[in-house]
């Protein structure tokens, strides 16, 4: 019997993220830094955060950009491109656990999710609690930067309250780096925008990650759920209401004013994949031309589920990273049991002073 024809299926790449993390000695430095930081809290008191305890991991780096002319937009209609392509999503989350006499305890977690053979797989790292104080913040920041991002220069760490976003970003960059390293010809989805801030290490790390990604023929697509980008006072996400999905609205580079000292590393789009209010800002590597961007987004539409117009891979990465109230309690329990931390309720000064008045909507309930 002769085989007269054979359909040629391209194989989907497979990965082994867990072993990769082990190879990189994940369990050594990050845990070590976490444990060393926590050792300093033994016998102290932890004041809990009742309100605002679960921080949002919305894009905290996106700056407000004002575009002055509506002429500077171009709308593209998207078509799904039926080419099997791997989709990888990366997200991280952080949360404030409480305050000690001399610092703040934060917890961090990050997730890489990838779609493989119609299944979603993930690797989740954390929760990793850190006790950040004025005394240890430099050590922690520089150690993690050096070890996970290869940045050997030492720089003074920011304020303790800003360290939450900095460590979270470090963890996110590291996971993004791993994702970029492990796949090729794939789509890598980030949460946030492609704006570099010289004040942190993003101005060094982000260009490197984009460059590295291009070398592996990967395309990074950064989604922002909320955008501060405005045109003539209106949010740019509101500009695509009249267009039929799926479509992309491109904000021309020359229409964006200088954001000194911030640096925009991507092309900025507004993505509308389905009807309704589900419109997102999408940043794509500036070094890719429009055709490549349309091709990448077309592949994304075909290769990933787009429930509510948002890639499922990235949604899962987000869901798996965020902290629930139960987890916050569990972290508090772990810290108090392991390090003998005494948990005390933090008095709500506003309530003590004003009672039911001046507490916003909460006072009405």
């Amino acid at each position, binding site marked *: 019997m002769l085989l007269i024809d054979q359909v040629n299926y391209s194989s989907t790449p497979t990965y082994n993220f867990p072993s990769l993390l082990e190879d990189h000695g994940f369990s050594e430095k990050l845990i070590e830094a976490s444990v060393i930081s926590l050792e300093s809290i033994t016998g102290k008191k932890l004041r809990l955060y009742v309100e605002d305890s679960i921080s949002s991991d919305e894009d905290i780096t996106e700056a407000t950009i004002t575009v002055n002319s509506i002429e500077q937009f171009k709308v593209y209609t998207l078509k799904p491109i039926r080419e099997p392509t791997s989709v990888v999503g990366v997200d991280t989350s952080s949360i404030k656990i409480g305050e000690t006499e001399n610092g703040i305890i934060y917890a961090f977690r990050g997730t890489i999710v990838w779609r493989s053979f119609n299944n*979603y797989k993930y690797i989740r790292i954390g929760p990793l609690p850190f006790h950040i104080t004025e005394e240890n913040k430099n050590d922690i920041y520089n150690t993690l930067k050096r070890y996970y991002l290869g940045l050997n220069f030492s720089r003074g760490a920011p304020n303790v309250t800003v360290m939450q976003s900095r460590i979270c970003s470090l963890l996110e960059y590291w996971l993004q780096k791993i994702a970029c390293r492990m796949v090729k010809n794939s789509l890598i989805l980030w949460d946030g925008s492609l704006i570099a801030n010289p004040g942190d290490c993003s101005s060094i790390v982000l260009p490197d990650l984009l460059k590295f990604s291009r070398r592996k023929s990967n395309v990074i697509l950064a989604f922002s759920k909320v955008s501060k980008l405005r045109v003539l006072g209106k949010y740019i996400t509101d500009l695509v209401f009249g267009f039929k999905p799926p479509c992309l609205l491109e904000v021309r580079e020359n229409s964006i004013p200088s954001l000194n000292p911030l640096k925009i590393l991507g092309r900025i789009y507004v993505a509308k994949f389905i009807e309704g209010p589900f419109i997102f800002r999408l940043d794509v590597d500036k070094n890719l031309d429009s055709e490549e961007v349309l091709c990448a987004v077309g592949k994304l539409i075909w290769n990933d589920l787009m429930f509510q117009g948002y890639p499922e891979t990235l949604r899962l990465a987000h869901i798996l990273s965020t902290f629930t109230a139960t987890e916050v309690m569990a972290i508090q329990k*772990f810290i108090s049991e392991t390090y003998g931390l005494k948990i005390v309720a933090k008095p709500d000064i506003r309530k003590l002073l004003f009672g039911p008045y001046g507490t916003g909507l909460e006072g009405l309930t």
Partner: protein
Amino acid sequence: MRLYKKEGDTIKILSFPGEEVEKGEYLIIEDGESGRGLIVQVIDVQFANIPGVLEELLRNSAKELTYGEDIDPLGISSHVAYIEDARVLICKIRGAVEDGRLCVYRSWLPSRFKSIIRRLSINRLMFILGLPGELPIEVGEAYSSKFILNAKDLDGKLNIITGKKGTGKSHLSKLLVLSLVDYGAPVVVLDINGEYINLGFKKNGEKNEYYNKILILTPSENFKVNLAETSLKIMMDIMVYALELPGTSAREFQRIWVYLKSKDTISLAKLGEAIRSWKCNERVRDALFSRYYTLVNSGFFTDEENGFISFEEALKTISCGGVIVINLRNQSSTNRRIIVEYILGKLTSLLSSKKLKAIFLFAEEAHLYLRETYWDDLVTRMRHLGIFTTFITNQPDTIRDGIYRQVDNIFLFNFTSDRDLEVISRAARIDSETVRLIAKELPPHYCLVLGYVVKDFPVVVKIRELDVKTMGETRLFFTEVGASVYAS
């Protein structure tokens, strides 16, 4: 375990994995500083309302569709599971202790942060309650402790054993019957299904130690009654209540009876002749004849002098401890009523004349043979005479509210019907919530003991095994796998 909340007489306690507590168990909340403690009973176990649990569950359901690995180097997920699995124990306050002694609970609350919550074993509880006392009856096991009640707490009391079919009511009833016999008590069982006829045998069919103390009286077979030994009162009760003889006819029957008595010729044959020749209205005669033939056809009354044991003699044989089982199986409802009227009439008469000290009466499904007026009579007048009744029923609504209010002890087996539980909870000497929440989930052979025997501290008991051939043989269709339907 931590004290969480108090609402009325309900205490809510937080319990964590490793501190599993079952429904019905007792806890003691001790306040070391004041030397006082609260005794509470767990009536329900619920999930603690932990913030974020819904999100966690939803995320886990997403994880079920996603394959992956969690790198959790500090093992925080185990703490999450610990918190998620926290339970709230809904407890009822049953009493208070001060310096180890039971005292009246007067709205005292232990410290929420300093109090220590421990399991209170049934042994310890019984000790605090001063149980079981001098005549112990081992009923079974309650949370790994032997549960023993005091036979004296059944003496002079009205008890109800109730639960749905197949939960073990008759088993407990037999256990109590034999335990009372152990202490020399005379017991009469009104056995509607012939379930007690094998009480004198072990499971393997051999005779047991009670064999000689058990007398099975099967009406119309080995138990017949001579009319001459029956009083007019008993006969009138049978005629009026069991056979519903109208008033005018009853008066004629009374005259006939007095006439025959004066001639000292009371017998079934003479009674028939007297009715035939008695000068009275024909309709009265018809009415009397129809009742007369019912008596004759019942086979319970006889003119024969020998071969049958009288009920009075039978009672003498158990006066130092024993059981008379009145086997009502295969009796028509009219016959059952006649027999029971006779038995109760006889017992009342013997107790009134002090020929009998007292008797424990176990009545299975009494609504099937006990006339309306007897219910109240049994729990009031007859009780004072010395008949201490235990009703066994799977239809609690057949027992009237008035009876329930007099009940001293309830042995409650599983009920799934809310209606049945409602009936019992109205009468039980504890809150309805306890009855509803505990009884609904009782497995077979587990019983919630309520009332005087447990000093109003309800206890869930697993009734112990009894080496007694329990049921009369029930004829089954599917006796053997593959058995032929047709006889060869």
